[in-house]
């Protein structure tokens, strides 16, 4: 049983004074717990649209998008929002931390939408997660005083505080230098493995894509298996061994 399932999904948008623009065509994808899926594609290939669909931020024009075998179209908007908050963690290229809020306050944000113990113990949970990503000493630091790597680690902590079942990472190292990017990905891989979550990484960086277990390519809205990255990954692992 898949966590997330896209079945022949198409997404079109209406351009003003023009015809409809098809961004995704016939996309099929299954994401299970513990999967590490990497999707590569050039700018404009539909990566972000796919990410929005996977994150239940958008709905397909045709085809079916299922969460836990339930068609998300049948869910009310609030229900989708709650699933997203509880089960899906987002990591963005530009970190998207809230300005003027400390690392701690940023990490707490998803827990403000939780209920029960997670809500009432939000500060403790956020603190522990920040300590886990190595930022225990920067709890009160504002994003403006953090390096890019530190900001992305805050974003990782924020994405993981509710122990989601799916992590969606959109170019997670896009704004970082090579070395920092690798260390951030090492950390992300490690924590995701600990939590048993699925990680879907969308990237244009072959090295980051090679970290996945399944490699997909998005070209002009069509999702296919990326043989080249898969081969590179095998080679990379062999070198690593």
């Amino acid at each position, binding site marked *: 049983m898949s966590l997330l399932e896209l079945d022949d999904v198409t997404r079109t948008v209406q351009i003003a004074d023009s015809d409809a623009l098809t961004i995704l065509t016939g996309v099929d994808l299954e994401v299970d717990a513990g999967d590490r899926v990497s999707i590569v594609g050039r700018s404009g290939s539909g990566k972000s649209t796919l990410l929005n669909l996977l994150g239940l931020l958008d709905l397909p024009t045709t085809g079916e998008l299922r969460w836990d075998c339930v068609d998300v179209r049948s869910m009310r908007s609030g229900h989708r929002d709650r699933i997203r908050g509880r089960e899906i963690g987002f990591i963005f290229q530009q970190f998207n931390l809230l300005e003027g809020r400390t690392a701690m306050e940023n990490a707490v944000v998803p827990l403000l*939408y939780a209920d029960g113990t997670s809500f009432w113990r939000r500060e403790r949970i956020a603190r522990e997660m920040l300590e886990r990503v190595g930022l225990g000493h920067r709890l009160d630091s504002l994003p403006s005083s953090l390096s890019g790597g530190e900001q992305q680690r805050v974003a990782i902590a924020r994405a993981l505080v509710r122990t989601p079942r799916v992590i969606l990472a959109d170019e997670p190292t896009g704004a970082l230098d090579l070395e920092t990017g690798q260390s951030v990905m090492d950390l992300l891989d490690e924590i995701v493995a600990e939590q048993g979550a699925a990680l879907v990484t969308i990237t244009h960086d072959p090295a980051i894509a090679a970290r996945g277990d399944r490699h997909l390519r998005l070209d002009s809205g069509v999702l296919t298996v990326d043989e080249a990255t898969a081969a590179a990954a095998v080679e990379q692992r062999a070198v690593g061994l």
Partner: protein
Amino acid sequence: MTRIVTSVVGAIVEAWQEVRVHRGRVLLSLVGVTVAVSALSASVAVTEIAQRAVLEQAESSSGRPFTMSANLTPAGSLSREKTDRAWFETLERFDISYATRVVSDYSPVQFSDGTAETSMVFVDGPYATLHRTRIDEGSWFAVGDADRLAPAIVVNEAFWQRIGSPDLGTHPTVTSSRFGDATLVVIGVYASPSWDTEPGLMMLAESASAILPPGDLDHLSPMYEMWVPPEAGEELMNLVELDLESRLGEGASVEIYRTDYGAYMDDPTAVLRMLTIGIGSVILLLGALGLLNIALVTVRQRIREIGIRRSMGATSSRVFFSVMMESVVATAVAGVVGVMLAVLIVKLPIVEEFLTQGMVADPPAFPMSAAVFGLVAATFVGALAGLIPAIVAVRVKPIDAIRI
């Protein structure tokens, strides 16, 4: 239930963070609201304090509601003594306890620095209750004071100061040519408006009759006053009039009319109150418009943040509630500051003195109703000003918002 509680608390936490993070912007936008709430609360408070002062002043001069006065003109050669007797018999018949004769006179009193014309009022004991007379020093007339050989008098502040503001325990005395050789003992000082600077005294009518030559008071027209339960006032007025007419006999004239402020209007400060609340409301409306303007601009600047929150699981209703709460939390804080400002202004000694004119015994604390009114108005304005930005925030598409 748990979800509702966490949603509400969470929204308040978010709102407070937002207010704290953007305190500069929030402070600027709330200056108008703070001033407006302050003006509104101060208006309400000033009106209430002034109302109390006006009422106390009105009661002091014309009696509590329902006070009525009687002009009794006897027929022929009927003496004052007989008129008084008819009055007391009527009071006894209708079991009216609070009644007084009021005889006003103006005579010289000998002070240490010379003689001064002094207002003199001869009354009965219940006068103080009927006119809510406040005693600042000493005491009002007690049972037995009418039998004193040296008549007791209660004086106003100006009189007391004229004799050097002595300790009344020392039984200060004065003399007046009006009373021959009699010595008058000051036993109390009654409160009078700050503008009342001429000396004045009150004496029991019984004492005055005892020391003045017989018939001396007959040329002064006494006023007969009584204070009755308002609900029975109208009926009693008619009955008392008929009773007095029958007692005074053929040819006598009995004229009874209501003298307290209730005879003219229900609330002498109603117009003032409506006016001040009206002005305050207009100011508050202007403050709300300023707040709405800034809130709308701010929401447009915060679209990305709203998108991020949506991606973290914020529902549209939560976003609506949070944006609304920001406005409400901010204006509630502005309301508290505004009310505090109003308290400071209204309780300034100079303002308080001006409002009460020295007629309110213990200047009242800042009226709770004014504070509550200010806070409720601020919160209402916050909710109103937050409504439109909240609707705008809900319409934000998270996908587009995050990309901004």
